[in-house]
């Protein structure tokens, strides 16, 4: 049946439609994907992301140890800052994409995908001392332009002053939380880490006090369309252990000038040899919706594969990500996606799909 987060009962009570996701029973939607998507783009929405895992590195040398296992450079991350990063195998394949929260050089929390709870812990543990805390944390994401006002009204400290990709320990209406200004939607917002016992209370509080802001509980469906409009990669869809972060377009989280890290040698070799394929954003110019696994064609020859695709609720057109031969992965390049046996026209576009005024 799958694992349940501490908010399972809340989802069922709210009429959430539960599906299996990476072995977890999660709500795919409550009122409707598009309505929830729009709530986050224009107001505020909350997501249960308690299925994500947490692994702790603590003690003398914790930062240096972890820095050898991840692609980004924790020396360039300040205390109280979060850093997007990746965990690779020796061949440079992505085991998981992660966010490292640096409390100090001797205390770091790694947030991993649900599918990475065991696998990442095994990979980390093989080379370093760390602690599995995935069952000790619940996570609620509060996302949208009104998120700061809502969370600010409930916090016992100044959360509006927490910068983007920064975090602080604080209390939300008396509930101890890690308050992180992070998210997966492209909107301003927070991810609140709390103890599982407190999660239902925090969830209900946000929904009740968020009502004047037009808050909606949001499911995985809206989470997926929101992240895809920003071209944020989804592990398992857009990347896995057979692709490198360079191919996945995540070169910006790879710091090859670090003395060493697991997978570095393979990435250097790949960079020297030149990339053969790259993840690119596209729009369909023909009618249809591209989905994960659909073939990419050029002149009737299969040259790649769609990894994510949806109908963008904001742009009102079909968008997607696909692995393309390097030479084709340039904006304005035309190709086709095979949808139910028919080639449908598509064009490479710059990402993110959604561009905002600063």
């Amino acid at each position, binding site marked *: 049946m799958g694992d349940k987060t501490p908010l399972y009962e809340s989802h069922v009570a709210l009429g959430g439609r539960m599906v299996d996701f990476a072995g977890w029973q999660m709500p795919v*939607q409550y009122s409707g*994907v598009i309505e929830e998507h729009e709530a986050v783009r224009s107001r505020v929405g909350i997501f249960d992301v308690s299925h994500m895992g947490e692994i702790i590195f603590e003690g003398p040398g914790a930062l240096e140890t972890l820095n050898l296992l991840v692609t980004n450079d924790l020396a360039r991350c300040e205390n109280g800052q979060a850093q997007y990063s990746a965990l690779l195998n020796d061949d440079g394949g992505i085991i998981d994409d992660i966010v490292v929260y640096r409390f100090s050089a001797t205390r770091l929390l790694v947030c991993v995908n649900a599918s990475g709870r065991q696998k990442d812990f095994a990979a980390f543990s093989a080379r370093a001392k760390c602690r599995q805390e995935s069952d000790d944390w619940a996570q609620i994401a509060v996302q949208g332009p009104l998120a700061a006002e809502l969370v600010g009204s409930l916090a016992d400290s100044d959360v509006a002053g927490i910068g983007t990709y920064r975090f602080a320990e604080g209390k939300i209406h008396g509930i101890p939380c890690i308050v992180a200004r992070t998210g997966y939607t492209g909107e301003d917002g927070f991810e609140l880490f709390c103890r599982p016992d407190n999660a239902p209370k925090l969830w209900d509080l946000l929904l009740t006090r968020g009502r004047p802001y037009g808050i909606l509980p949001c499911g995985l469906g809206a989470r997926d369309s929101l992240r895809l409009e920003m071209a944020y990669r989804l592990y398992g869809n857009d990347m896995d252990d057979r692709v490198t972060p360079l191919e996945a377009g995540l070169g910006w989280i790879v710091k090859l000038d670090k003395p060493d890290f697991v997978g570095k040698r393979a990435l250097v070799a790949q960079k020297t040899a030149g990339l053969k394929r790259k993840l690119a954003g596209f729009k369909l110019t023909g009618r249809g919706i591209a989905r994960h696994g659909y073939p990419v064609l050029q002149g009737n020859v299969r040259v790649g594969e769609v990894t994510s695709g949806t109908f963008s609720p904001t742009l009102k057109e079909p968008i997607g990500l696909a692995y393309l031969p390097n030479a084709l992965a340039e904006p304005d390049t035309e190709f086709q996606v095979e949808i139910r046996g028919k080639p449908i026209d598509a064009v490479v576009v710059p990402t993110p799909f959604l561009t905002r005024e600063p």
Partner: protein
Amino acid sequence: MSNLPAELKYTKDHEWARLEGRVCVVGITTFAQDQLGDVVFLELPKVGTVVKKGDAFGVVESTKAVSELFAPVSGKVVEINQELVDAPDAINSDPYEDGWMVQIEMSEAKEAGELLDAPAYEKYLAEQAH
């Protein structure tokens, strides 16, 4: 329970059919659109296409899922709802009126009698829920 107009016939694939003489108007039921979620894409056959009962004649997609449409009767497609192709969200908001998809001129009159009436479809839905 689902909204099931008594004057319509239904299939186990969750299509509805409105019989108007030899013509059968086809759409999907409230239950089907609710299961799909927000519909964002509809593909229908060309007018003149000949379909057999049970054949896939089109595709409806929501934000999350792809679902085929199955012909409730055999015959020739004599009209399609082009407005619905351009704005398929009416499948969610008004599945039995604005949400009609195709009109099929029946070639096998007896097939009309093989469709479910509202109570039979409602019973089928109840069985599926258990």
